[in-house]
Structures are given as structure tokens and as C-alpha cells.
């Protein structure tokens, strides 16, 4: 009975994390489309939400990596396995909301992995963590994917502007704006595929710990897929406007051919990585794509903003890990498998989340602030030529 109650708390918290993941990462899929005026902000997030939902059903390779490749599943089977998962989710949610409050596009994926590592080390010791799996399946692909996507986006941008010269400026910009609707859809689908699976993996790990599913015959129940798909798409539709603003307007000035190239590169790299079960940070990949698109057109890139993001990326795993470990220590005060301990962690998370939300409201950014669909291709070219890398919302 105690296990069932804690399992329900873990599943609800995982769904809350999934919601923050969608909310935090909406920017990945739609930021450049909104920045170039290809899509109205609300239309963009609704489309992205729908495709995130569909994407969640495509594969379970990443879910398997999260459930079996980060922490030894036998640890989850041991007493206190559910608390480890809950503490991990706490670390990830708090880190996600902190970076959202600061408008920094950090990685939800690395937050959950960091939280899991921190909680498992605090609970069982470092032997519980598969460091080899983390380096091989998480860290190495994460670092390489940013460079791969950046290089591909730079080449794609170069090719796109070669076409612009043949097509004529106005026609090309209008055409690539339409193309961006498709490329944003591709990134949304890719995001649903890669990111929704991380929460599926976490819930699967909780289900392994209660014996509902076996690590040896791993599968993700349909209800888990459905719940995760719904949560990430609802989070996406809510629209993390702060991070959309950073990603679309503050790294570099984005024109429609660049946005198309960045999104096509990001979507392809994320989908290919999902195939191999790499739980990539879609945020990092898309940021790499946007930066590559800036480099491909040889225009100014705001390296200070990019550097701020890289610092957050480096900090994500340790920071979420420390919060995860702290959360586990708090739960442990009340004993193993304690309902009170779990409820205390959840209560603390809710209080911190509410505080961060209140702080963010002081400088709220909304859909209207980011709407650029009335910007003509000529104005878009003028702004890019002038090196305008900030939107009115952040001026």
C-alpha cells in the first residue's frame, strides 16, 4: 500500500517534470519560426504541442537508456528506489524552473540525469551509477551533437544563401518562411520523440522498482506513453516565451533561410540520435544549430549569451545532482519508503516552484511581445543587415 502511494506520487511528479520539460523546451522547436515571423507565436506552440504528442509514440530507445543505462536497475529494485526517482525529479524540476526564470535555455534531459545520479549516489553510493553508460550515451553524444548540428546548420545556411542569390531576395525569404513551418514541425516531432521518452524512462524505472515491469524484458506501458505525450504537449502549448525570446532573438539575428537551415539540421540530428537511444539535450542541439546558422552567414553572434548558456549546460548535471541528493537526504530523515518524506519533498518543490514563478512574473514576456508575422521580408533583411540581435521584448 505504501509503495503504491509513493508510486502514484512519483508518477504525478514525473508528469509535472514532463510538463516543465515541454514548457521549457518549446523554444527549441519554434523559436526561429517565431523570430522570422514564419508563424504567429500561439499558432507555433499549438502546432508544436500536437507534434510533440505524436513524436512521443515513435520510439522507446531513449526511454530504455534512461531506465537502464544511467543507474543500475537493481538499485531501483532495492528499498528506497522510489525515493531515488522522486528526489531525481525534484532536482530536475527545480533546475528547470530556475533556468527558465533566468531565461537560460538549459537542458531538461541533463537535469533529470543529474538528479538521478545525485540521488542514487546519496542513497547507495557511486557504484550505483553507470558512469561508463553516462559518458558513452549522454555526455559524449551531447558534446558532439552541438558541434555536428552547428556545422551542418552553417553548411545549410551557406547553401540556402547560394539559392537566395539565384531566387531573388523577396521570393527566397517568403519561400523559406513557408519552409520553416515544415522544419519547425520536424523539430517538434523530434523533440517529442527524444524528450517525452526521458520521462517515460523515469516512470519505467519507478515501475521496475515496484516490480510492475522487468528490466530484462523492458517495455513502456501504453498508458505511460500516453500520459507523457499529453504532459509534454500541454507544457509546450503553454509556451515558455522567455526562453523562446533568448533562443530566437538574443543569440543572433535570424532570417528565414537561416531558421530553416537551423531547424532542418536540428531535427535531423535529434531524430538520428533518438534512433541510437542517445538522450540528447534538444536545447543544446538547437542552440548549436542557431549559432551555426549565424556563423554560416558570417553575421555577429552574441557570444556572451552563448557563453551564458554553455555555463548553464556545464552546471546542469552537478546542480541538479546536488538538489537531487539533498532531496533524497530530506526524504531519508523520515525513513525508507516513508509517505511523509515523499510528501515533504513534493511540498518543498511546490513552494520553490511557486517562488520562481512569482519572480519570473516581474519581467513577464508574452506571445504578443514576440509576434513578428507583420515584419515584411524587406524589413527582415534590413534588421539583419543592421545586426539587430535583440527584440523589443528584451531591449
Amino acid at each position, binding site marked *: 500500500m505504501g509503495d503504491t502511494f509513493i508510486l502514484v506520487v512519483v508518477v504525478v511528479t514525473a508528469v509535472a517534470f514532463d510538463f516543465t520539460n515541454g514548457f521549457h523546451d518549446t523554444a527549441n522547436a519554434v523559436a526561429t519560426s517565431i523570430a522570422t515571423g514564419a508563424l504567429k507565436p500561439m499558432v507555433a506552440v499549438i502546432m508544436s504541442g500536437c507534434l510533440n504528442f505524436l513524436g512521443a509514440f515513435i520510439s522507446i530507445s531513449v526511454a*530504455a537508456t534512461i531506465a537502464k543505462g544511467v543507474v543500475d536497475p537493481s538499485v531501483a529494485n532495492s528499498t528506497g528506489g522510489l525515493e531515488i526517482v522522486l528526489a531525481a525529479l525534484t532536482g530536475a524540476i527545480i533546475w528547470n524552473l530556475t533556468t527558465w526564470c533566468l531565461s537560460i535555455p538549459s537542458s531538461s534531459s541533463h537535469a533529470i540525469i543529474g538528479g538521478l545520479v545525485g540521488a542514487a549516489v546519496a542513497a547507495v553510493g557511486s557504484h550505483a551509477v553507470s558512469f561508463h553508460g553516462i559518458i558513452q550515451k549522454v555526455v559524449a553524444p551531447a558534446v558532439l551533437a552541438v558541434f555536428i548540428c552547428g556545422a*551542418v546548420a552553417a553548411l545549410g545556411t551557406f547553401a540556402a544563401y547560394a539559392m537566395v542569390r*539565384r531566387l531573388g531576395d523577396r521570393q527566397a525569404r517568403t*519561400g523559406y518562411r513557408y519552409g520553416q513551418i515544415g522544419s519547425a514541425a520536424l523539430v517538434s516531432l523530434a523533440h517529442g520523440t527524444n524528450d517525452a521518452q526521458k520521462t517515460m524512462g523515469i516512470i519505467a524505472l519507478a515501475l521496475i522498482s515496484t516490480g510492475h515491469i522487468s528490466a530484462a524484458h523492458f517495455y513502456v506501458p501504453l498508458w505511460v506513453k500516453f500520459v507523457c505525450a499529453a504532459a509534454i504537449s500541454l507544457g509546450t502549448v503553454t509556451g515558455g516565451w522567455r526562453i523562446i525570446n533568448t533562443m530566437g532573438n538574443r543569440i543572433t539575428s535570424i532570417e528565414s533561410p537561416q531558421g530553416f537551415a537551423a531547424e532542418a539540421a536540428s531535427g*535531423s*540530428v535529434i*531524430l*538520428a540520435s533518438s534512433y541510437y537511444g542517445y538522450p540528447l539535450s534538444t536545447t543544446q542541439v538547437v542552440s548549436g544549430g542557431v549559432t551555426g546558422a549565424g556563423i554560416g552567414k558570417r553575421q555577429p553572434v552574441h557570444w556572451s549569451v552563448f557563453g551564458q548558456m554553455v555555463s548553464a549546460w556545464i552546471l546542469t548535471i552537478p546542480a541538479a545532482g546536488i538538489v537531487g541528493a539533498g532531496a533524497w537526504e530530506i526524504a531519508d530523515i523520515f525513513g525508507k519508503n516513508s509517505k511523509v518524506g515523499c510528501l515533504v519533498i513534493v511540498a518543498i518543490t511546490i513552494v520553490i516552484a511557486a517562488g520562481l514563478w512569482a519572480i519570473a512574473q516581474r519581467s513577464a514576456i508574452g506571445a504578443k511581445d514576440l509576434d513578428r508575422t507583420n515584419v515584411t521580408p524587406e524589413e527582415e533583411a534590413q534588421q539583419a543587415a543592421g545586426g539587430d540581435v535583440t527584440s523589443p521584448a528584451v531591449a
Partner: protein
Amino acid sequence: MLLFGSPIVEWSAIGKVVIAGLVGGCGIVIVFGFLLLGLKFAGVGDPGETHTERSKMTGYTLAALCGIIVIGVIVLGIYAIIQKPS
């Protein structure tokens, strides 16, 4: 580079990610550019200019072919992911 007896980077898989990125990223951008070029030949969105029937036909054919390639690459990629045994 080895860690605990096995490579820390799965170069074969990463190499395939690079290829998929180049095909999907650069390839789609180039082919989509030709799609727009086809539409230009066909006179779409450029009503002021006169286009011969032959030019229109060539333009539409090029645009349709490129559209099929773009959609085909995406559908093929998604199909491959769905078909992968879990």
C-alpha cells in the same frame, strides 16, 4: 579511447548521426531551394514576369520532384525509427 574496456564514443553510431544530419540538414535545405527555384520558373509568386508554357512545365516538374524528395527523406527517416526493434 577506452573506458572500462569499451570505447567512450560510439564512433560508428556518431558517424551515422553526422550522415543523417548532412542528408537531413544540408540535403533538405538544398533540395528545398531547388523547389523554390522550380516555383520561380513556373511564375508562382511572381505575376509581373511572363513565363513560357515550357518554362512553367519545367518549373512545376522540378518543384514537384523536389517536394517529393523532401517529404520522402523525412518519411523514410521516421519510418526507420519506428521500425527499429526496441
